[in-house]
């Protein structure tokens, strides 16, 4: 698997990076972070220009984010009609809108690079929850800058041990994503438990 990714970057260069970062923002399971590490390593060896590697990855990520947001946005009307049908649903959607309003910016920023496996879903949700386009875009631009700089930079710096860096990065990113989801679900469970306590008491 890893070797195939390395080979793709070696063969197709920056075009492969653009395609993969774009697709990864739309929940297509492609190893974008690994591709960027590889691109950085080939930039260090002199096989690819660093600027074109970074710009291709950045361009793919930004256009992927916009596409995901627009897809979500196109479902917003449908979602609202669905929610209007019942009071419970409407309340749920109202709460979702409130949390997008409150946490949306930071959520978009952190889901670009820190918890990147959640990124595509945040794109859809931001669109469907009618987050303001300018606000979404500003945080997306900021977050993708960190994502691309981080992975291309790590690949460049640790180029001579690319296989090891790839393993470290994959494990660490899985660990962070798992932990964030676990903490989130833990809070949710705790909230549910308290609510039941109140109903009983």
């Amino acid at each position, binding site marked *: 698997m890893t070797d195939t990714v390395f080979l793709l970057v070696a063969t197709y260069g920056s075009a492969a990076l653009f395609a993969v970062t774009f697709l990864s923002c739309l929940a297509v399971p492609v190893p974008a972070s690994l591709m960027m590490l590889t691109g950085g390593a080939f930039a*260090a060896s002199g096989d690819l220009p660093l600027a074109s590697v970074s710009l291709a990855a950045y361009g793919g990520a930004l256009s992927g984010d916009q596409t995901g947001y627009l897809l979500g946005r196109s479902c917003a009307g449908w979602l609202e009609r669905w929610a209007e049908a019942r009071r419970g649903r409407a309340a749920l959607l109202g709460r979702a809108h409130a949390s997008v309003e409150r946490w949306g910016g930071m959520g978009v920023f952190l889901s670009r690079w820190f918890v990147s496996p959640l990124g595509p879903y945040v794109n859809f949700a931001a669109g469907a929850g009618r987050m303001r386009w300018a606000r979404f875009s500003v945080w997306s631009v900021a977050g993708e800058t960190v994502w691309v700089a981080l992975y291309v930079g790590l690949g460049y710096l640790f180029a001579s041990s690319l296989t090891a860096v790839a393993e470290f990065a994959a494990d660490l990113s899985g660990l962070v994503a798992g932990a964030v989801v676990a903490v989130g679900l833990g809070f949710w469970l705790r909230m549910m438990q308290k609510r039941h306590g109140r109903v009983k008491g």
Partner: protein
Amino acid sequence: MLTAARNLWRKHRFLFIAFITALVVTAFFAARLVLFSLYWAEPAHQDQPVEGWMTPRYVALSYDLPPGVVREALELEPVDGERHTLEEIAEASSLTLEEIQRRIDEAVRAQKGDRE
């Protein structure tokens, strides 16, 4: 604690399963990270063997050799042209990856000898 878990299981089964799954995933990656770090800490495991996806320039970087030396070992023209992988180079010539590895190791030894 046990009663609480039983309650959660009864009332929020889906959420509870999702939570446990997330914990297991986290533990899995934590374990992988630790195991790989231990493996990587051994100097003998830090060498990256030559592979088909590598380019001559990448081999030069990884093995700390001048690019010209690698190109010479692979019987390539000294001028740097397009980006080719070792796989492509092996297909176009009579070299195998094992043979390439042997030549690179030899070049590393020769370089070390020169330096000392």
